[in-house]
């Protein structure tokens, strides 16, 4: 088992190196001269000499591998360059925004986890009765409604009409609820379907008949026999949906005026602020690689066949 885990870790490290290369290449190959952009930012009528000076400063004339090495050591120490738009350092700006996004995704993840397990389980417990029908309806709606529409509807209903919670901003628990539901609804819908379908498939397998022959009731069979069998699938889907939520932050954060990484990324894209785009991409992709690693390890632990491999 350990050898399997260490192999996955090694793979992830290789992917991480490839990801840094990709991020670096993206910016190097981006259209437009960076030095010109920066020079224009510093003074509207920059001369050619100014541009050359900036090129020298940034090391833009060095050979590519040297630039990559310099960029990478910088990135590892938190130095991700300077925003072309604001002139701020990207590293600290990013660091201050990560907690916001983390809280959004963690909250949405909790919503998704709870809703999917409750609805998925209720649906499998009473198939084709009202909990199942209701759960499936909510799942279909959640999987089909764009998150910006969900958010807009929630704001209209709970913030504008009922005035129960603030429309936007980050001010205490009451302001967290709407963003959490907005970002968690799609994963909740997808995951509840994973649970519902997974449990139903498990209940159609011969070992479920064995469990019936043992005299267990339906709830016990669902919990003891079916649930362990869908654990690897669920963990896999949960990982994928966490990734979807992180990207979903790009939509949800601006909607509720939360200043997280998604909001920063969007601003970066809009103003073609390459250093910001690059830094955010690096963070996002590193996170996805880490997430995939965690999912792989989770699957190794929940799937007995994988667990016993190589031990």
């Amino acid at each position, binding site marked *: 088992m350990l050898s399997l885990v260490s192999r996955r870790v090694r793979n992830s490290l290789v992917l991480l190196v490839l990801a840094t290369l990709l991020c670096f290449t993206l910016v190097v190959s981006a259209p437009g001269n960076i030095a010109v952009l920066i020079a224009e930012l510093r003074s509207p009528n920059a001369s050619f000499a100014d541009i050359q000076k900036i090129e020298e400063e940034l090391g833009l004339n060095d050979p590519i591998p040297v630039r990559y090495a310099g960029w990478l050591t910088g990135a590892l120490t938190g130095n991700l360059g300077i925003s072309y738009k604001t002139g701020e350092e990207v590293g600290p700006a990013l660091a201050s925004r990560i907690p916001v996004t983390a809280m959004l995704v963690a909250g949405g993840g909790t919503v998704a986890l709870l809703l999917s397990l409750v609805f998925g389980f209720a649906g499998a417990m009473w198939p084709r009765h009202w909990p199942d029908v209701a759960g499936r309806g909510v799942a279909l709606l959640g999987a089909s409604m764009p998150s910006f529409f969900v958010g807009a509807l929630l704001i209209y209903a709970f913030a504008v009409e009922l005035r129960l919670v603030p429309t936007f901003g980050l001010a205490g628990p009451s302001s967290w609820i709407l963003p959490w539901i907005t970002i968690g609804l799609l994963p909740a819908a997808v995951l509840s379907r994973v649970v519902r379908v997974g449990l139903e498939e498990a209940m*159609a397998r011969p070992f479920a008949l064995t469990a019936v022959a043992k005299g267990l009731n339906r709830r016990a069979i669902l919990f003891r*026999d079916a649930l362990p069998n869908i654990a690897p699938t669920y963990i896999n889907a949960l990982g994928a949906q966490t990734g979807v939520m992180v990207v979903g932050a790009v939509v949800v954060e601006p909607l509720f005026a939360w200043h997280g990484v998604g909001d920063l990324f969007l601003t970066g894209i809009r103003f073609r602020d390459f250093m910001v785009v690059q830094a955010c991409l690096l963070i996002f992709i590193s996170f996805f690689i880490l997430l995939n690693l965690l999912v792989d390890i989770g699957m190794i632990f929940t799937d007995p*066949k994988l667990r016993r491999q190589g031990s």
Partner: protein
Amino acid sequence: MSTSSPILTVRDLCIDLFTARSALRPVDQVSYSVAAGETLAIVGESGSGKTVLNFAPLGLMPLGVSIHVSGSIRFDDKELVGMNDEALRKLRGGSIGVIFQDPMSALNPARTIRRQIAEVAELHLSLTSTQAEARALDLLKMVRMSDPEARLRQYPHELSGGLRQRVMIAIAIAAEPKLLIADEPTTALDVTVQAQIISLLKDLQKRLNMAMVLITHDMGVVAGIASRLAVMYAGRVMEYGPVQTVLTAPRHPYTMGLIDAIPRAEDLPGSAFRGLPGMPPVLGPPIPGCAFVERCRHAVATCETTRPLLAPTADRHVLAACPIVNRSSEALHAG
């Protein structure tokens, strides 16, 4: 034949099975009984209704089919037909143990052997989980598993087919059932393992004084373990009686054909295969006459229209559903 009164008595059992495509009757007026310590073998081709017969009344049906049961099944002084789900559930795994055909798929791949055995003891014997796990170890020893402590920690995919079937047997007998139903317990196994499993079942039955119903299509298994035999064809019992008598002197044309089809030691290599001509009828609505009429050498006109019922033959321990052959045999005896 049986010394005590039967623990299981099935009378005129009919089972109608409804699927999305059709309605059919896989079990049609079946009667038999089994006493404690006795083994009844039910033989028949695949699709003859022998599995539905045993599992449907217990509520063990795959998803997507509905059933309707009529007739009577008396088990341990309780009527199973029409019994409520909750009472039936208490019997399953408790007084009635079940062994399935394919041990590969019948065990849960994601759970340890320990838990899969122990939960039965927890449920039906009201043991604590520690006691139940100790019982699981005893059970593995009872089913003659080598290295039982290590096996308890393993998962089904780490065991061979024979070992998995032993685990399945341990689960079935965990609550010391009065009746054990084994559905082709050796079909999915290697030939060498088959004999071990059969002798294990025989041994356990003696130790626990269980009644056993063995569903099989293997006449060799029947001769080795069963005391009585019911031969099924198209959902009906064709012949019913003590194993030795039925195997050596079959009274129904179908049983004759079935026994004649068994390869013999004196068969020359390459000699023609002696099978029954034709195919069994496709299951559907009940057949008005004799179900075997299409393939029967002795069939007469009335066989097409009148359904023959099980009736005592010249040997009154043997019942057969064929008045034609049995009348003529009586005539022979008389002559």
